[in-house]
């Protein structure tokens, strides 16, 4: 019996030992932990390189970079903040920022930034990080969207220039679809991340708005219904890829890379993918077609200092380093985003490449998703409504009204 008691003790000791051997987690005060989400497989190594460089440059702090993919980012950040083990600096989608700031997780940084640092940013992008009079982060990446056009398919279908309006788009798409051989005129996204973004292109160019002038949801306005019917018309005419409600952004990009899609709306990152995976595709980028208004979707991602950080000044110093011209140019080259610094907006790398320049040119008409605390849930309701409208399960009017009701309810919370 004694020995069985000993076994029990041994097991207990084993657990205790594992506890003791791992207390090394307590983060020293002079360490700055930076967490980044990956745009590509190069994101992590790039920032690790930056940290290494920074660590040899100064003795005050040691910067440690952790990187993980976007889908796990939100869960890990939430659990970390809830347990008090958050990093000093964290990357996030700007649309999460409002909620995080409201619940006290982020540090306002306007007082910590030098004037020259503040002024180095393109004002539109920095303004997006502000709310209630505070700056909650820096725009680490920005993109505008445009229409990618497969020139070869256009030539085959006998079309010489990119369509300017949605009506022209329909007739061009019809001609391209008529080429057969599983070639589709235009891609419409109906699944997963950024489905709502694909709809905003149509919403804004039809003169709609996400939040109406009355401060209520604009999801079910007359313009919104027209914007939805615009896509439904493309789907019904059979000029889109099949299975819109299962097509994610990546699916559309892959189809375009395979040379099977005449037109797709996407962002500058697609240049990167095309140059690596489909160097033979001849394409150009045009503005998003319009109905009444010319517009594009501007999206930024944010990098913030967390409220729990013991080293906010040092954290900002590191960010200042990460945002210097040399490092931002390198970042732009790796990930292919639109520049967020004034100095970079004039940089030849961006202005001379026609595939990048077009996004810069469209920036003035860029619109943004609203910074409201429950945006993720509103976007999800919209996404559900859209897939019901696209699949024909529900009229666009009914589907949008349901989403709008949900949004109004969340706005009131």
């Amino acid at each position: 019996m004694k020995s069985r008691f000993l076994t029990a003790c041994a097991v207990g000791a084993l657990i205790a030992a594992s506890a003791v051997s791992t207390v090394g987690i307590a983060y020293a005060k002079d360490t700055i932990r930076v967490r980044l989400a990956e745009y590509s497989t190069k994101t992590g190594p790039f920032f690790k390189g930056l940290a290494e460089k920074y660590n040899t440059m100064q003795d005050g702090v040691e910067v440690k970079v952790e990187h993980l993919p976007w889908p796990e980012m939100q869960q890990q950040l939430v659990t970390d903040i809830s347990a008090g083990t958050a990093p000093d600096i964290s990357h996030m989608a700007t649309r999460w920022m409002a909620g995080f700031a409201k619940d006290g997780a982020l540090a306002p940084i306007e007082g910590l930034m030098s004037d020259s640092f503040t002024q180095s940013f393109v004002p539109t992008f920095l303004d997006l990080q502000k709310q209630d009079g505070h700056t909650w982060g820096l725009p680490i990446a920005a993109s505008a969207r445009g229409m990618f056009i497969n020139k070869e398919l256009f030539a085959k279908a006998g079309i010489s220039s990119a369509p300017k309006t949605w009506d022209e788009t329909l007739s061009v798409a019809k001609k391209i679809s008529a080429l057969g051989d599983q070639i589709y005129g235009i891609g419409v996204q109906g699944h997963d991340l950024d489905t709502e973004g694909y709809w905003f292109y149509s919403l804004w160019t039809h003169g709609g708005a996400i939040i109406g002038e009355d401060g209520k949801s604009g999801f079910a306005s007359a313009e919104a219904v027209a914007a939805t019917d615009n896509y439904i018309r493309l789907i019904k005419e059979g000029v889109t890829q099949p299975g819109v409600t299962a097509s994610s952004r990546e699916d559309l990009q892959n189809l375009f890379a395979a040379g099977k899609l005449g037109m797709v709306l996407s962002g500058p990152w697609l240049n990167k993918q095309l140059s690596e995976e489909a160097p033979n595709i001849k394409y150009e980028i045009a503005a998003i077609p319009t109905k009444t208004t010319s517009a594009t979707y501007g999206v930024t991602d944010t990098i913030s200092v967390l409220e729990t950080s013991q080293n906010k000044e040092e954290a900002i110093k590191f960010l200042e380093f990460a945002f210097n011209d040399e490092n931002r140019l390198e970042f732009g080259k790796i990930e292919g985003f639109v520049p967020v610094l004034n100095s970079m907006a004039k940089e030849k790398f961006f202005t001379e490449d026609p595939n990048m320049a077009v996004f810069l040119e469209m920036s003035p008409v860029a619109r943004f998703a609203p910074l409201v605390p429950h945006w993720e849930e509103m976007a999800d309701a919209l996404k559900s409504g859209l897939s019901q409208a696209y699949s024909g399960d529900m009229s666009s009017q009914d589907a949008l009204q349901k989403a709008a009701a949900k949004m109004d309810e969340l706005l009131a919370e």
Partner: protein
Amino acid sequence: MRSIGKFSPYLLIAPSFFLSVFVIGYPIFDVVRMSLFKVNRFGKLQKFNGFGNFTKAFSDDVFLQTIGQTAIWTVSVVGGTVLLSIPIAMILNEDFYGRSVARTIILLPWAVSLAMTAVVWTWVVNGDFGTLNMTLNSLGLMDGNYVWLANADAAFTIVILIGILVSIPFTVTIFLGGLTSIPDTLYEAAMTDGASGWKRFRYITMPLLKPFTQIAVVLNVIYVFNSFPLIWIMTNGGPANQTDILITYVYKQAFRFGKLDKAAAGSVVMFLMLVVFTILYFYITRDKHPAAKKAKQPDGAALEDLNVSKA
């Protein structure tokens, strides 16, 4: 073992008990507490909310819709799994050439984690580049590409079928364990009595497999009900929440929408559902007339040695 002290059984179970309490105890307390409070998106308690979070969950249409879908998901996957696993186990219990290869193949889905299975199948059923469409096309069974996950019914059917596929190895193993413990003499005796194949199945195999069926159903219901990766990775609950089940709903509420309180209430509801199911199931399938059952069996005496009957 009569001489062993009164406390020794407790000492023997103590390590396992304390390990589980140590790991699971606080998190359960945490979830229950969050379900009764208003909390912010980082789980900070704000104020006591009674059953407010539960009312909020139950007044959400998507939550109610999800409960129905969870029932369909669980019943279809577990039902399909058990119905397929019994014949598969019976075949694998036969003596035939290549049996060990066949057994290994049937167990193979178990060798891959659910997350990986989901990733691979997403690729297989991909409309444009997937191997499923490619194969069906080249076999002449289909013309053109079908986008399997575009339509809610098709998407749900696909995830259910894959759910069945990955539950088969575990379930077949349980039934094989049961079948190997049925002595051949029982069947031989029945054959000399002239019992047909169906009768042998109905009156020998079925009753003897009953405890195994019971455990296969209960464990599968628990695992399938709580199964997250397949649906999360393949459909993310879409299109339009029509393939969401409770666990994906709860996860979305917690980590996408920042509503930890509502998510905690949902988790508690999920737990209560499983408890109620388990109690009901064991009540319904209990041995109503143990004596009568024994009399029906062709060779009651032989069963005395079999521990399976005690369950």
